[in-house]
Every structure is written in C-alpha cells, then in structure tokens.
C-alpha cells in the first residue's frame, strides 16, 4: 500500500523540485490595512519579502531594490479566495461515471485562460479549480494561485495546498446518470447508495493492498499485487483524511444525509458548496463540517434551488458555520467583494465578517488558512489594493499581488492581455455563456435528446 501512496504522492506533486515560481518583494506604504483576522490598521505599511509578508507596521523601510507603492488613502485587503471556480480549465466534467475520483483537474489546467487575468483584476488571487457536478463523486480539484503570465500550468498550482475532491448531490447526478444513462443514481437515495458503496469498496480495496503489502514482507514472497485502481485508491485517501470533500448540494435533507454518511465512515474533512438550504441545517453544519460555501443571492435556476434566501450566508455565519461566498463563474469571480458586501444588506454582517467570507474562511475550507487569507506576518504576500473600501459599491481594485509579485495594475492594463494568440483567427471563439455556471460543462452530448426538458441553467 505504501508504494501506492508514494506513487499517488508523486503523481500529485511530481514536479516540486522543478523551477520555483516567482516570489516578489514590495513595500506598500500608508494604507488602510484590512487584515481580516486582526482588525483594521490605519496608515500602515506592509513589507513583503520574497513572497512572504515580513512586517506590518508604521514607518517601515526596505532595501533600494524593493519597489515601494504609496497607498495613501487606499485600502489593502488579503487576496480574495474563491472556493468554487472552473476558470483556467480545458475540461470540467468527466461525466461518464457516477464515481470518477481518479481524474484530476491538474491534468487539464489552461494557463492561457484570460479569465485568470480577469479574476486578478477583481482582486481574486486564489481559485479552487473544481471538477463539475455531474457525478456523485467527481474528480479531484486543484487549488490555483493566479500567477498569470506563465506558459506552465504547474506554475499556477498551489502545491502546498492539500488535495480536495468534488462530490455532488441531487438533480445533477440523478439527471446525468439516472435519466441520461439509466444507471444508478436515479434518485437522491441512489446518490447516497453510490457514495456508500464507493466507500465500502474502498475499504475492501484498502484491505486487499494491506494484505498484499504484509505478504510481500515475507522472505521469498510470491505475493501477487491486487488490481490497481486509482478510483478506489482516491476514496481510500478520503477515508484516511488526506483529501477534503467539497460537495455540491442544495437541499437540507441531502446535506444532512451526507453528514450522516461521513460520520459513519469517520470522514471529517467536508465542505458543502452552494448549500442554498443550509440555513435549515446550520447547527449540524457548524458541529460537524468545515463549513459551507454559498452564493450571495443566486437561485431558482432549477427545481431544487427554489427554497433560498439572501440571508443564507449571514444565518450560517451567525450560527457558527465556517462560511464563504464563491463564484462558480468566470464573471462573478471578478467582483466577489460585491458578493460579500451583500451580506451586510441581508444580515448585517460586520466588515470583518463580510470580508472573511471571501478570504480567511474559504482559505480554511481549502486547507490553506495558515498560509493565506489574512494579512499577517509570515503569510504569503497575496494582497489587493482598492481605491475605496472593498465593501463599498464604488470600490475598484487597483493592484493585485500574488507572492509579492504584481500581476494586475489598473494603470498598466493592456487592451489585449492574451498570452497565446491563434495564428489564423482575428476573432477567437467567445463563449457567450461565460456568466453561466460551468458546473455542468462538457455534458451536451448527454442531453441531445432530452434537451428541451432541461433548458435552463445547469450549475
């Protein structure tokens, strides 16, 4: 078994010894610093050295070779983190099996997606590039730092982030597999059965390999390796606590169901995504999970998403649920600060509470809360400078830094930010549905006949 785990570990971060990504140094002077975890500091400097926030204070100075940015009258907040995104991906769904835990979004990252730059222009420095929601157990996700400008997909990987995986409940998996292909799951009960069966099979798989490893240790062992199955191996890793589940969900009953399943299998690392009915099971979410990642005010795009409220984030938050607001869209990712501000209108959250929804809270949900998500000495230098308070409707991001390197500057914004240009096309294909949720991308072929039944948003 160990060998397999090494193989998987090698597979997931096979290139850690390769070239380092850029780390920058910058001194931001005289800003109003919204630390998120430590209140608001007026007239304060932040020194980032080699990609890490070295000092926060007043009257800081840096070496001659460090760029200084005068942020008098401006606001600095931690880089915004989106816990549910599909930008920079060539493919979103391997929708052909109810469980596809073997697939990995790191294989299909597209560093040329201008969506990364647009996200930076909206202050978003980290996105969680997720598999879609077609399958009960989808693929493994990858956490990206928006180091736009590289040709190498791996430069975008946040390699220190833990592994995560997509799950999905409700209408999407039952529609794709049950109605689309006439296999399990056809109902919510079927979704539960698929997940339970998956974990039970994983336990058997784990035992098979443990027995084999044991037998291999004997002298002159003639042990035969069991069939290798990265699908089941990934489920074993979930059971072993090495992977955080991010589960697409809407209804309270199915959220409660998965909490019960996780309890039974001893799984503690689970975040629920969308969670429109989360307010009904807030105490349960607070007690047992790594929280909920929700929309500010988006619903009614299919039957299971009607029972919704814009107070959801505030209710969850006030009930002790670790809560974040996500985009699930290449458009919303450009103004998550607006989305966070909506919780002040609907629920009266404080500035720090609202900002936490798009910074430290999603960071914790991705298992990177000790590295990013707030402005603290020792954390990574992911920062955004705004002209106004980011929760103001007038706020416009001015500069965005990742690891102390400036990747966006509103004064240096070019007409054409593409990294790669098609050698023959004057007008490259534009995806007019960019603002739609991409959770159900790559599924068209499944619905050619039944399309009229499902002619609505798919997220």
């Amino acid at each position, binding site marked *: 078994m160990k060998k397999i785990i090494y*193989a998987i570990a*090698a*597979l997931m971060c*096979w290139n850690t010894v390769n070239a380092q990504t850029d780390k920058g140094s910058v001194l931001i002077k005289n800003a109003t610093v919204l630390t998120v975890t430590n209140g608001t500091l007026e007239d304060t400097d932040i020194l980032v050295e080699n990609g890490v926030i070295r000092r926060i204070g007043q009257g800081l100075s840096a070496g001659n070779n460090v760029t200084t940015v005068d942020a008098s009258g401006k606001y600095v907040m931690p880089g915004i983190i989106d816990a549910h995104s599909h930008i920079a991906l*060539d*493919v979103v*769904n*391997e*929708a*052909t*099996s*109810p469980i*596809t835990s*073997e*697939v*990995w*979004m790191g*294989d*299909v990252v*597209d560093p040329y997606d201008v969506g990364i730059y647009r996200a930076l222009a909206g202050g978003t420095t980290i996105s969680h590039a997720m*598999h879609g929601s077609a399958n009960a157990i989808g*693929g493994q996700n990858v956490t990206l730092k928006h180091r736009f400008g590289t*040709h*190498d*997909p791996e430069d975008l990987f946040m390699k220190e982030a833990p592994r995560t995986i997509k799950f999905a409940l409700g209408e999407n998996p039952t529609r794709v*597999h049950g109605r689309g*292909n006439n*296999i399990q799951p056809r109902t919510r009960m079927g979704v539960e059965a698929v997940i339970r069966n998956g974990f039970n099979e994983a336990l058997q798989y784990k035992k098979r390999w443990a027995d084999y490893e044991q037998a291999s240790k004997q002298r002159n062992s*003639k042990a*035969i*390796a069991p*069939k*290798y*199955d*990265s*699908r089941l191996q990934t489920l074993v890793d979930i059971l072993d606590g090495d992977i955080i589940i991010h589960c697409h969900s809407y209804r309270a009953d199915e959220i409660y169901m998965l909490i019960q399943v996780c309890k039974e299998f001893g799984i503690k690392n689970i975040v629920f995504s969308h969670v429109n009915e989360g307010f009904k099971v807030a105490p349960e979410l607070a007690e047992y999970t790594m929280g909920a990642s929700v929309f500010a005010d988006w619903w009614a795009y299919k039957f299971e998403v009607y029972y919704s409220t814009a107070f959801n984030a505030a209710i969850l938050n006030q009930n002790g649920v670790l809560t974040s607001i996500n985009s699930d869209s290449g458009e919303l990712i450009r103004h998550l600060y607006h989305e966070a501000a909506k919780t002040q209108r609907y629920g009266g959250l404080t500035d720090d509470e609202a900002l936490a929804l798009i910074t430290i809270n999603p960071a914790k949900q991705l298992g990177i809360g000790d590295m990013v998500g707030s402005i603290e000495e020792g954390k990574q230098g992911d920062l955004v400078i705004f002209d106004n308070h980011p929760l103001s409707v007038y706020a416009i991001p001015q500069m965005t830094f990742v690891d102390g390197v400036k990747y966006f500057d509103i004064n240096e914004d070019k*007409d*054409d930010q*593409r990294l*790669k*240009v*098609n*050698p*023959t*096309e*004057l007008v490259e294909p534009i995806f007019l549905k960019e603002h739609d949720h991409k959770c159900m991308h*790559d599924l068209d*072929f*499944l619905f050619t006949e039944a399309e009229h039944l499902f002619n609505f948003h798919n997220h």
Partner: protein
Amino acid sequence: MSNIYKLRLILGLLVLVGFLQVSPVKAQSDASGEKRVTGTFAITNATVFTSPGQSQQNTTIIIKNGLIDAIGPNVSIPSNAHRIAGDSLYVYPGFIDGGSSAGVSRPKDVEKPSNFNASSPPDEVAGITPYRNVLDYFDANSNQINDWRKAGFTMGQLIPEGGMLPGKTAIVVYGHKSSSNIYKENAALVATFKGSRGMYPATILGVMAKFRDLYKNSEYTSQHANLFASNPGIRRPEKNKTLEAFYGSHDGSTPIVFAVEDDLTTRRAIRLQEELGFKLILNGVSGAYPIIPQIKDSQAAVLLTLDLPEDKSSKMEDSESDDERKARIERIKEAYQARLAEAAKFHEAGIPFGFTSQGAKVGDVRKNIRLMIENGLSEEAALAALTINAAKILGIDNYAGTLEKGKLANMVIATDSIFKEDSQIKHVFADGHMFDYETTEKKKSNGNGEPADLEGRWEYSAQSPQGDSQGLLVFRKDGEDYRGEITLDNPAGSGQITSELKNISVDGSSLRFEFNIDAGGNNITFNVSGDISGNEFDGNLVVADFGSFPMRATKQPETK
C-alpha cells in the same frame, strides 16, 4: 494414316496451340507485363547528397537487389544496369515519414453489447485497442501512398486510426505493389488524448486517468505472469490483451507514440512519461516552441507536423483608424511567424526532430518546408528531419536515412536542389524500385513570378474507383482574390449540383481550393491542389478518410 504421321500432326497442333497461347506481345513468364527488365540501376554523374550536409558531384550510384551496391565517382557499371543519366540531377536519401495515415483506414466501430453501460464500456468499444495491428487496416496500393511517394517519401511509420489507444504502428517502405513492403510490425504503441463520445473515458481528464491505470496494471500483470511462469503454486494470471499490449513499453523496447497538438497536450504526454517511465515519441508537435527546454529535458523524440497554419493575417485589412484592430492583426502575424520559425527553433535547441505527415496535405509539404527554411531552418537541418533524424527516431537508421553502400535503395531524384521552388521530383526509388514522374519546363517560367491566369471556365475530370467524373470549374476574379464554383454529378441522385469554391489560393503555378458537398446529411470537404501549366491543370482531389484521386482540368477558350 500411319501412326507416326498422326503423332506428328498432334504434336504440331499442340505446338501451334501452345504458340497461340503465349504469343500475344507479352514476355513468356510474365503474363501481366509488369515485370521489370532489370532490378539493377546506375545513376551516373549526379550531384548526390549522401547525408545532410554531405554532397558530392559527378557521382554514380549502383542499385542492386533493392540495396545501394556502390556509390562514388569511379564505380564500374554492371552491364545489365538500367542507366539514368544524372548529369543535371540531384539525388537525396528517400524521405521518411515519422507518422503517416496514408493508406490506413479507420476500423469499423464495434457494436455496443446489449448490456452496455457507458460508465464501464468494454475496452474495444471505448477506443482502447492497443493490441490492434495497423497493417490489418492498411492498403499498400492506396492512392495516398502514391501521392506521398511522388512527394519524395519512401518509408513511413503507419499510425492506426481509432480512439485513445488505437493500436500498434508498422514501418513500411513505399515500394512496389508486388511486395508486402513491411519492415517492422508492432514498432510502437500509439496513444492519443481522444475521449470516447458518450462513455468512459470521454474527456482528457478520463483519458489521462485511464492511461495511468492501464499502464500500472500492465506492470503488475506482467510481474504476475513472470511469477506464474517460474513458480508453482501461483494463481493463474488473467489474460488481458489490452494490458499485454503495454508489456514492450516497460523496458523501452516498444516506444509510445503520443498524438499531441499544442504545448499543453505535449506537456500532458510528457507528464505521463515522467510518471510512468516509458519511451516517448511526440507525434504532431506544433505551437510548442515555448516549451522547447521542457521537451529537451524529457528526452522525448519529436515529430513536428508538416502542416502549417494558413497565412490569413496578411490578407486581413488593417484599417487606418482602428488601432486596436491593427494591434490584434499584428499579434496574429507574430503568432503565424512563430509557427513558421518553430522548426528552426527546435533545431537551434539541438533537438533532432523528424516530421509527421498526419494532418498535413501532401500538396503543401514542399511549400511548407520551404517556408520553414525561409524562416531560419537550414537546408541541412530540413534534410536531416526528412531523412536521418526520422530514421533514428524509428530505429531504422542502420538501413535507411542516408545514401550509403548496403543501405536500402530509397532515394529522391530532383531536377534541382530539392528545396528550390522550381525543383521538380523526376524519379523516386523506393525499395530499389524506380518510379518516374513527369517534369515540365513551363513550370519554371511560371514559378518566376508570372501567376497563372485562372479566370475562366475549366472542364475537369476526376478519377475515382467509381469511375470518372466530369464537370465544370468556373473562376472569377474578385479584387486580389478569386471566387468560383464547381459543378459535379449529384451524389444523392441524378443531375448535377453546384458548390461554391472556398479558400482559393494561387501561388505561382500552384493552385489550391476546397469545396463541400452534402452527402446524405454528411458534409464532406474536398481539397484540390495541383499545378497549372498554361491551360492545363494537373493535380489531386483529396477527400478526408476516403483517399486521393487524380484530377485534371483544361481551360476552355473564351466565348464572347
């Protein structure tokens, strides 16, 4: 009548009958009349490029038994040799195609079983057929082979068609139809990132994961099989032809030819190689110049595509007032130029690449190579890519790739230095067989700037296995460009239909255009390319997946 007389009469009749039977024109032992008079050739007094950068003048080459028997300035010419006066001719090693679809057909789709489940389809249905042998789907007499031979190619690695793991390649010589022409079977395993529509694995996500699982399980089952073979008391290994097809890849004896498109797919293939440790040949590399250092580090063999993007940017009008549009066109031009210069970049980086013809049109190949040369690739490096580099990548360099005594008699003989626009291929030797091609004088004068006059009505005839097809081509001048249409027999019934010509381009004497027709709901694209000489057009009509057919046209006098 005496018995003796009778006997003589019968004998006489027999002789007479026998004589009648064999007499008509043909030689006695060759009823077809196709047997050649001699297999020994002497090309005398030619300029010979024995290998890239190595040329010698006034050289004679003797070909015997399909091999180069002698090469040098003072070799004696056997009396039975067919002499070819090479005084003004240039001789090169025959080109080698690192990845070819010529003559290869797509296997029939396998029928889905009645209990078909899209989440776990049988390998064969899901495009996972690494055990297939491309030769089972290969037609050596295909027109496509003739076309590529005419363009100078004498050997190629045949790539099977299919899904994610279509099968194994073979290396063949484009020789005479009387031979099987096979040099190496199961030379390499082919892999692609093609998903299987509507079933697992449907996307690159699934293909990458499936590939890893198959490869790792093939290692385990191979260990199991070895254990079983040498020990009692081992449970029987389950036979699995998919996994067995990978066995040769574990020790590097069977490389994996990965079909790639751009830098991202190239990276994906390299990622799998680094994780799993197989020997990798990148097939169809294009637009990957930003990652040349990574490709070099991987030590993967590189087959660059012979296809180049069309030059569309030079035809885009940049309006004076629209700076944004201007800047955009400028970037397209840069991207186009970068693609033209890509081969030169690989050469500068010290990567000994070969070429793959997959995805390229035979009519464009020499033009594309000239474009690469105009954009920085040396002629020496271009010739190396076409010959010895490809031979090394395919592991056939001990008998092909250069002109040396003892190597295969594969060569291209041209009227001038092969990379000059006016140079024409006069003979191709493949496997010691000579193929002759018509050369024309007019082409030269036409190539010197005088563009062919296209405007008017042309009567064409195209040959196809179903018989000849005749019709009319009409070209009209439209500013700098041409417009036009073709009439042809309605494939769906009686009468004739007309289709608009697209992408008409005239470059010196060469003409290319496309048109589409609708055949039973399928939109089929026809590509036509060839040369105009005066009022005659001589070229080919290529239909993807169907083949290439000769097409000729004659311009009709103006009627007022």
